[in-house]
């Protein structure tokens, strides 16, 4: 119940009731999207978004830019990758 599952919003089921269909690894289920809806935006703008689903509720959008940023930080810690980069750039020089 505490571990969210990432899924992708595929369709809006009921605009009024804030229900959307989410595809979680091939399993489709209705989820409540009130917590990820943006004020003043039609719900349709959520279609295609990746969200984290907890007990039938989309609780957070997964921020792609932030994910990539964290992965960049992690990659920079990879000393081997750093060495390889250095080798590559020095060969070009």
């Amino acid at each position, binding site marked *: *119940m*505490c*571990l*969210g*599952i*990432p899924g*992708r919003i595929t369709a809006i089921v009921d605009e009024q*009731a804030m229900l959307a269909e989410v595809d979680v*690894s091939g399993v489709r289920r*209705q989820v*409540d999207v*009130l*917590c*990820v*809806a943006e004020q003043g935006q039609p719900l349709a703008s959520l279609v295609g978004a*990746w969200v*984290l689903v*907890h*007990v*039938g*509720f989309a*609780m*957070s959008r*997964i*921020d*792609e830019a*932030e*994910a990539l*940023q*964290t*992965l960049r*930080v*992690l*990659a920079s*810690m*990879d*000393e*081997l*990758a750093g060495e390889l980069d250095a080798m590559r750039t020095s060969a070009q020089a």
Partner: protein
Amino acid sequence: MRFVKEFRDPHLAEALLARINHVAERIGHRRARPVTVMEVCGGHTHTIFRYGLDRRLPANIEFAHGPGCPVCVLPKGRIEDAIALAHRPDVIFTTFGDAMRVPGGRGSLLQARAAGADVRMVYSPLDALALARANPERQVVFFALGFETTAPSTALTILRAGAENIGNFSIMCQHITIIPTLRALLAQPDFTVDGFIGPGHVSMVIGTDPYAFIARDFRRPLVVAGFEPLDILHSLLMVLRQIEAGEARVENQYARVVAAQGNKAAIAAIERVYEVRAECEWRGLGQIAGSGLQLRAEWAGFDAEKRFAMQPHHLADLEQCRCGDVLTGRIKPPQCQSFGRACAPDHPAGALMVSSEGACAAYYEYHGVGEAA
């Protein structure tokens, strides 16, 4: 699944472990005892054991497995309350699967079901509400469990039930909050944890500000973490770097999901539906002031405790069960004399042995009983 594989990359895990080793060596020279970092959340405990991260740490760095597993801190008396309700002939009792096997005083909800009670597992409170719509002649009770991660979903379900005027739906509210408990732990004089890996999905709702007191008043670093192995190692490294530098700050490693301000809609739902309970009991830890939620008077019609005039049970923890000492990081699971003997996953004595997010169950599954001796 998005960003799952990337955060399990074994090559990057090795790179992180190498950095952790470096920092640990530098810190090691200055300290007599190991650095203890508490992962607050049971989901993190699970990741740590599943990927064997605890076995890869240098000798002077230890994880302590914290109280952030709602199933593990379910008091026996509440299970008895739930079972008493479930045995009413007019009631369909619904619960997340995790709570089914938690032992009360005389058995679990699963055993109550075998004995004839109508207990049903649901994935979502919305499924419990759907059962209420489909069975207007029965009373559907939902066992509302969890921290701030799941409190909004129950709140939004109550709002829906209110809007549709569904009269045969109610909840047994066991929602709890982590901040008062962290404060209570930190105030204990023998609490030796040096830093925290903060709960990712609680923080997704409440944001990172509520932890500020941990850094400010108790001078401990806290890093909010994601749930993949690289997230945990990365966060551990961030905590250790702060300790090395003599700093204490709140950092967010899980920015892909957690915003500093949390989720406004979820917080609004919590505030609209619940108020703070004066006292709330935690298994192993006892009563902690202000750590539980209950329905506001306005929503009392959906409160199963009121609807069925429940008489709450209070049952003490068994003396030979050291769940509280495990939850506060004082001992490791095998140091409890019940571990692997009177308490094992197929006959749990304590709730930490029930959920795969409980430290004792995880220890048993991934380390075995061999190390109990």
